[in-house]
């Protein structure tokens, strides 16, 4: 009798500890978002989004240059990483079971865990050193390398959800393999693939480490992809470790902009996925 009560007490106690763990785990998100809103929103003004930085000591200034830079660098990376990732994912799902498919899948998993700073060093030795100067292109290469395995794995998983029967129905109609793949299989899985790609864009948009010694950063608005360029995460970093309180305020506001971009992309992507799967069931 007593032992039974003890066992029930242990069970309740552990559940209590777990609830505490949930509270501790959720807390940082609330605190981080709270600080960002509190400190970041203060400096917000329209000028912030449409002007480039002011010289040190001068009030005002904005991060237009960094917003443009992030859009350009992430855009270039996506143009390379997404199509290639989708095609590679296609191979692994269509030719599942071949040696190349297993190797590619495994390597993609390994690359997915590679620290982004290592990819930055790779882009430096491969592009920056070879060209002899820092450039936005080198940063885009690094981000594309990070993106490729992510897009590949999500594409593959989503294509596997397309029922074999649909594939067979198309083939039985006299569709060639490529037409079956593109017209039937890809179109069926497309909403999910778009979601996955959005998520990977959100992730690389916040990457800082691979940009440090590839795009380097810049104080000026620039559209030249062959030159150093600014990017939002770099601006956050450089302003945060700088000595001036005005810079710190700019860092908070830039971080708020960055996190809005990233969170809006990720939340939107998640909602799209849920709706889609809800309908499937």
């Amino acid at each position, binding site marked *: 009798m007593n032992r039974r009560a003890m066992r029930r007490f242990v069970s309740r106690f552990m559940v209590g500890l777990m609830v505490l763990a949930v509270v501790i785990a959720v807390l940082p998100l609330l605190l981080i978002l709270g600080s960002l809103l509190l400190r970041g929103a203060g400096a917000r003004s329209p000028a912030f989004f449409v002007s480039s930085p002011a010289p040190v000591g001068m009030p005002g200034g904005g991060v237009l240059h960094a917003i443009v830079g992030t859009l350009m660098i992430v855009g270039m990376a996506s143009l390379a990483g997404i199509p290639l990732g989708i095609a590679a994912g296609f191979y692994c799902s269509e030719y599942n*079971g071949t040696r190349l498919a297993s190797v590619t899948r495994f390597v993609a998993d390994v690359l997915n865990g590679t620290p982004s700073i290592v990819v930055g060093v790779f882009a430096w030795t491969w592009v920056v050193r070879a060209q002899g100067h820092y450039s936005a292109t080198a940063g885009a290469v690094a981000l594309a390398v990070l993106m490729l395995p992510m897009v590949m794995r999500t594409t593959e998983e989503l294509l596997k959800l397309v*029922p074999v*029967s*649909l594939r*067979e*129905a*198309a*083939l*039985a*109609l*006299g*569709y*060639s393999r490529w*037409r079956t793949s593109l017209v*039937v299989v890809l*179109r*069926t899985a*497309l909403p999910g693939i778009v979601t996955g790609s959005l998520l990977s864009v959100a992730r690389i948009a916040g990457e800082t480490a691979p940009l440090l010694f590839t795009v380097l950063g810049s104080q000026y608005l620039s559209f030249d992809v062959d030159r150093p360029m600014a990017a939002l995460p770099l601006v956050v970093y450089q302003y945060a470790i700088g000595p001036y309180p005005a810079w710190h305020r700019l860092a908070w506001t830039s971080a708020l902009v960055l996190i809005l971009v990233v969170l809006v992309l990720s939340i939107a992507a998640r909602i799209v996925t849920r709706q889609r799967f809800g309908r499937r069931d």
Partner: protein
Amino acid sequence: MTEPLPRLRTEKLSAMYGKFTAVKNVSLAFAPNKVHALIGPSGCGKSTFLRTLNRMHEMTPGGWIVGKVYLDDQDVYANGVSPIQLRRRVGMVFQKPTPFPTMSIFDNVAAGLVLDRSKSKREVAEIVERSLVRAALWNEVKDRLKASAVGLSGGQQQRLCLARTIAPEPEVILLDEPTASLDPQGTQRIEELVFELKREFTIIIVTHNMQQAARVSDTTSFFYLGEMVEHGATRRIFTTPKEERTEAYITGRFG
């Protein structure tokens, strides 16, 4: 000419998955404009046999065959024969309805037609309508041709798949247990259609429902453990089977 030439026939056909032989040495001939039923317990190889006829079997990982399949006396496994061309002449409807979920009802029926670029938009629209009429679905969907095909009932979806299959005018239609996932009413509609469609097509239907085979088919082949045990006119198979195993199956002693 007394006996018409067979539209489709197999010669010593065996079908394998890797090392496993699913169909053993089957020689069968299917006369045009008849309904041919393939019956037998599950796993007897009847579906695999059907899938060798339009070369779908080889799309299954590990699937390969030995033997010959002739369509109008052309060896369909010969070098230079394109399985894609073959499948336009030998259509197939599957057990589960497989409408393309991203396409409208109209686009589903037109799916096989757009492969042939010579057809104008108007011709395609005419064929789609005619196919839906022949599949006895036109009246139910004519007002929502642009709607998604996923909204149709199971029976309607299966008739849609039938319309999609007959639209490109194949010569042979393979039906792989087409009513297995349908309710009795949907089943009856499909059976009526099969009876209608044999005026224009040669139909081979796999079924594990013996009543269905008896109702719709002209000839019946009984498969057991990968072998074709007995083949003949449906009435004779069901009344006076020659083989003991056939009799055991149709009287329900196993299966």
